[in-house]
């Protein structure tokens, strides 16, 4: 019995050491990616290609989800607000929830599962099939040539996708509230405009999505590069990318919100 308690404590210790080691390893890798970004920023064609795969191919899911989330917000918001006779505030509700929280967060979650997992799988597969080793043998640094362009493409795509998500959401809210239900269009927009602030709401939302972009792609490229070079290794790494990204996005969102909106509103 005593041995099993000791063994359990050892197990906890082992896990803590393991995760601290992994965190350090990941940070080192992240710094390495930043240091080796020169090549891909000089040859921007490399990033362009990855922008297509991370950004353009994520468009559909972002646009459609944004529209639906906005429509749901419009419907629920109207149901609640009309009890207090302030259904014209539905524009404010839809826009504020999207711009401050749902836009950056949901777009980042979708981005992690669409583009993040693809990045991990691609890099992991390149590692498993020795393409990265072959590149190293040809005196081309795989971090500079393969990892960095994908990282930067993700960082650039994320804020743009989040903005599109929010715009589609506002449009969805407009569709439901104004077109279907019949809230006055003028008060919908004017209420929204007088309550959504450029600096505090839109800029902060934009900054959030930039942070999420860095976090998700950094996790994705690290998991891919670190994946054991086997089929199970790559599939495990892909799952880890999505799970870790989701946790990091939500945790980071809380921290950023606490900093940004403290003492305001």
């Amino acid at each position: 019995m005593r041995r099993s308690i000791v063994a359990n404590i050892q197990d906890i210790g082992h896990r803590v050491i393991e995760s601290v080691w992994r965190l350090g390893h990941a940070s080192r890798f992240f710094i390495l990616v930043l240091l080796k970004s020169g090549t891909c920023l000089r040859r921007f064609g490399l990033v362009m290609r990855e922008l297509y795969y991370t950004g353009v191919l994520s468009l559909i899911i972002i646009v459609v989800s944004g529209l639906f989330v906005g429509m749901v917000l419009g419907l629920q918001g109207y149901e609640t607000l009309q009890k207090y006779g302030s259904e014209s505030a539905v524009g404010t509700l839809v826009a504020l929830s999207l711009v401050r929280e749902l836009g950056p967060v949901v777009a980042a979650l979708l981005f992690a599962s669409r583009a993040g997992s693809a990045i991990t799988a691609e890099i992991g597969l390149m590692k498993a099939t020795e393409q990265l080793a072959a590149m190293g043998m040809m005196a081309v640094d795989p971090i500079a040539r393969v990892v960095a362009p994908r990282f930067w493409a993700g960082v650039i795509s994320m804020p743009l996708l989040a903005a599109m998500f929010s715009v589609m959401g506002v449009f969805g809210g407009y569709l439901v509230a104004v077109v279907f239900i019949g809230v006055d269009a003028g008060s919908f927009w004017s209420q929204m405009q007088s309550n959504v602030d450029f600096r505090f709401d839109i800029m902060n939302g934009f900054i959030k999505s930039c942070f999420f972009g860095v976090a998700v792609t950094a996790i994705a490229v690290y998991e891919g590069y670190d994946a054991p070079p086997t089929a199970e290794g790559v599939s495990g790494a892909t799952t880890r990318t999505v799970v870790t990204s989701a946790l990091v996005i939500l945790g980071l969102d809380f921290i950023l919100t606490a900093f940004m909106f403290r003492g305001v509103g």
Partner: protein
Amino acid sequence: MPSENLIEISDLNFSYNTHSILKGINMTMPRGKVIAIMGGSGSGKTTLLRLISGAINPSSGYVKVAGQVVHELDRDALFKMRRKMGMLFQFGALFTDLSVFDNVAFQMREHTDLPESMIRDLVLLKLHAVGLRGAHNLMPNELSGGMARRVALARSIALDPMLIMYDEPFTGLDPISLSVIGSLIRRLTDALGMTSIVVTHDVQESLKIVDYVYFIADGVIAAQGTPQEVSASVAPFVHQFVHGKEDGPVPFHYPAQAYIKDLNLEGDFA
């Protein structure tokens, strides 16, 4: 004046954690020759290639390539040396997102400022050498295993290296592709005046094309010699390996306690 030997390996040891993989290897590889390194699976052949290319550092001893000790080079010097090395990976390791043409052109575009028209001529020249000029538009997933390896071969000779290493080039090929690759290795080595190191366990095919053979077993050189010497050898290990005997110095059974003990039958017969 360049020495006669491109590669000199002296008293090379490598261990992974406490597990010792290579123990005191000495080799010399002259320029312009095809050298085979043979041995059973897990005998440290691939590790040796990784040591020569500088992917890992030895525990002691050194590998000298063209007069330079590999593990003492800094990153830039190592990358400079690797431009003169080619490596053919087991399954080719072609870049799956690039076409055959772009795969072969990869190093030229990364390391030289050649105009695109000249790159085109050079790539077609290299592809012609492996007989796949007509396939330059295909993507790697449209190639058969043998073709992929020929493209990878064309890619590794793209910058006319002084040394090419082949990691199990014959694995999983049909007999025709196998002899195509074999004769390509020989022909390209002679035509380009480079040195080739072939890591393999395909004895029959490689004995046809190589100049010298090293056998590695348990991290030491078990035997060496020219193909004629090796074929005629009566040394038990070489004989077993060359003729593919099931049992011999390399035992069929993984070390274990007595069979009878494992089956708990000891008492019954005692």
